[in-house]
């Protein structure tokens, strides 16, 4: 033993079976690391397959759309390429080339194929995303393509003058390659002109940036409102003896456990123009029966209902930060002559800032992506970006557009999530 301590490098410590202690320790640690990792592995695989892969696939769809190049038979799953001739012409001629007769010959050939494969609607829809009104152009063109006589340029333009539109040719060129940034451009209210330069769309067609802005503003407003409402009650809960605060905590946790749809329904009932709140105000004579306040299907409905729904997510982190604050600090400040306001401002409040950051980030992250409540009480001007994604998924069926919007939203959320992990740590997420 004395040898080992005085001259450790030469002899080295060994375990009972003669291995060097260092190697044995490393071996044991590696084994325990492996064991811990193996416990997590099944879940990690599960999440990757059911969550990460689907989202990755969706992200891909935002820059990948083969609506103008491949026709897929829905029953057999067989894929046939379409618009081949036109794609070849685009390959041979650089962007900005005036479409000549060879281009139109290729186009007419492709229109005939569209008729045979019944893909005219699909190809037209793909162009329609960028140039509204083009779907009928393609269905009509495919129907009549067989009867057209050369020269095809004049014949097609005579059939519909839109075929000569340079913008249409620019869109067809970009659609003939599967990879496209068009949907991201459109999601940021940008478009390409006939020469392929990026520019903003007309003022009255700018909907996406406006909606991103509104989502951001409403989320900030909701976060501030939840903070204002949560701070006093979290403080009360933190300063009461545990026996009472556990009881009062039920008021915070019950909404947390109640179905989201139930809470949204309750707000619909309260806020309706024939609802409880308006009736109460009429009965008290605060407002006349004829001018009931419209509180639902607009921003007010979204803000009020979401503030209520997200309030517990603010109260819980605040409470967990406030509870361990030692009350004697404030008392010490008071005894040193601070007024109660100064003691609060200089002593108590700074200690609660971590809780405020945690709660505010969490509420903001949840608010930005909210869907259900705005969809039910938001009407037209109280909806958020999620609702537009749902619209593109279910109504306009412009799935690439939905994917592009979702990617932008996801990017923003992930930055906030990273920030949350940095500042608060995911381990500190608490649920009651």
């Amino acid at each position, binding site marked *: 033993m004395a040898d080992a301590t005085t001259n450790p490098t030469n002899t080295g410590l060994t375990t009972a079976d003669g291995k060097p202690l260092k190697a044995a320790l490393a071996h044991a640690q590696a084994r325990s690391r492996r064991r811990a990792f193996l416990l997590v592995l099944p879940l990690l695989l599960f999440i990757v397959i059911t969550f990460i892969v689907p989202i990755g696939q969706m992200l891909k769809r935002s820059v990948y759309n083969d609506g103008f190049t491949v026709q897929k038979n829905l029953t057999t799953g067989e894929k046939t390429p379409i618009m081949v001739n036109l794609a070849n012409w685009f390959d041979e001629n650089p962007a900005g080339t005036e479409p000549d007769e060879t281009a139109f010959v290729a186009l007419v050939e492709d229109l005939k194929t569209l008729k045979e494969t019944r893909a005219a609607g699909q190809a037209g829809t793909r162009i329609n995303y960028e140039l509204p009104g083009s779907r009928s152009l393609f269905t009509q063109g495919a129907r009549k393509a067989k009867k057209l006589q050369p020269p095809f340029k004049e014949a097609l333009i005579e059939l519909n003058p839109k075929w000569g539109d340079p913008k249409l040719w620019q869109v067809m060129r970009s659609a003939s390659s599967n990879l496209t940034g068009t949907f991201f451009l459109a999601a940021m209210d940008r478009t390409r002109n006939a020469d392929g330069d990026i520019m903003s769309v007309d003022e009255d067609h700018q909907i996406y940036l406006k909606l991103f802005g509104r989502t951001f503003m409403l989320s900030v407003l909701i976060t501030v409102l939840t903070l204002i409402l949560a701070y006093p009650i979290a403080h*009360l809960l933190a300063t009461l003896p545990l026996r009472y605060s556990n009881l009062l905590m039920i008021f915070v946790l019950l909404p947390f456990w*109640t179905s989201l*749809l139930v809470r949204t329904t*309750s707000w619909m009932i309260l806020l309706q123009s024939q609802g*409880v709140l308006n009736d109460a105000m009429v009965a008290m004579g605060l407002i006349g029966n004829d001018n009931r306040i419209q509180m639902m299907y607009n921003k007010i409905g979204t803000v009020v209902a979401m503030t209520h729904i997200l309030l*517990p997510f603010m109260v819980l982190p605040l409470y967990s930060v406030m509870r361990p604050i030692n009350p004697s600090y404030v008392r010490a400040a008071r005894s040193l002559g601070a007024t109660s306001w100064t003691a609060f401002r200089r002593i108590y409040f700074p200690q609660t800032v971590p809780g405020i950051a945690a709660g505010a980030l969490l509420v903001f992250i*949840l608010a930005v992506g909210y869907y259900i409540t705005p969809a039910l009480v938001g009407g037209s001007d109280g909806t958020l970006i999620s609702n537009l994604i749902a619209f593109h998924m279910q109504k306009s069926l412009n799935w690439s557009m939905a994917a592009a919007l979702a990617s932008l939203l996801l990017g923003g959320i992930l930055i906030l999530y990273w920030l949350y992990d940095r500042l608060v740590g995911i381990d500190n997420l608490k649920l009651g």
Partner: protein
Amino acid sequence: MALPSYASRAERIWHYTYLVICVLIFLFLIAPILIVIPLSFNAEPYFTFTEKMLSLDPTGYSTRWYDLLLTFGMNAPDATRDSSWWADAWENAAWIRATKNSLIIGFFATVLATGLGTLAALGLSKPDMPWRRPIMAILISPMIVPIIITATGLFFFYSYIRIGSWGIPYLGIILAHATLGIPFVIITVTATLSGFDHSLTRAAANLGANPRTTFFRVIMPLILPGVISGALFAFVTSFDEVVVVLFVGALDEQTIPRQMWNGIREQISPAILSVATILVIISILLLATVELLRRRGEKLRGISPQ
């Protein structure tokens, strides 16, 4: 939170104002949830208190909406209520079918989420877990990523792998709901494990128990309350989830939230309020269970409220 005896007059006034503000905020939190309960007994098809209700006239109240809930979708709702009527209700009533679907989906999603989640939480709370932080971030992310994005991704993914043709009913929804419930299981179980005294496992080993005996006889009983709360969270998440069901559910895969969603979107009737009331009562029971479990867990681990 008693007022100190040296408080000035202004402080006293502020103190009571503060208490009033707090009461109002608690009211804001709880009133919207409780308001649906009396309104669901409304005899009229309105969403507000009628004069008869306000004057506590019994004729202003009725259980007609609960009755509608039961009979809606039945073949012969007006037949005499004998055993065949109840059989009809059990088979065909829309809300009963939705309840059955919700329970089946919720059960399997909870089992999946709790099993995988508890295992992973055990691994995550080991001191030498590699890449702990990034893995934790990935496992919690289903809670953070907006539900519409998850639903959109799953919609594409499920149609790509043609999950509908695999012949397992509800499979897509169950997998999705398990994913959504996992963060809650991870959070509650790791929280329980963080207060876990590891000298107990060493003591067990010292007394001759092998790792398996230690796990089942020492660790499991101690973390069980946390696991059950996690499972309840996962179940509630699935029981309340509507967006994924709307996106990936087949037409006949109606669940309670989906049925509610349709009811609210199309024509909202007070029957929705009776569903809401039942759900509120369920959530009160769940909350009570979780609270009891939490206390039990604290007692087991020797942490008791002062």
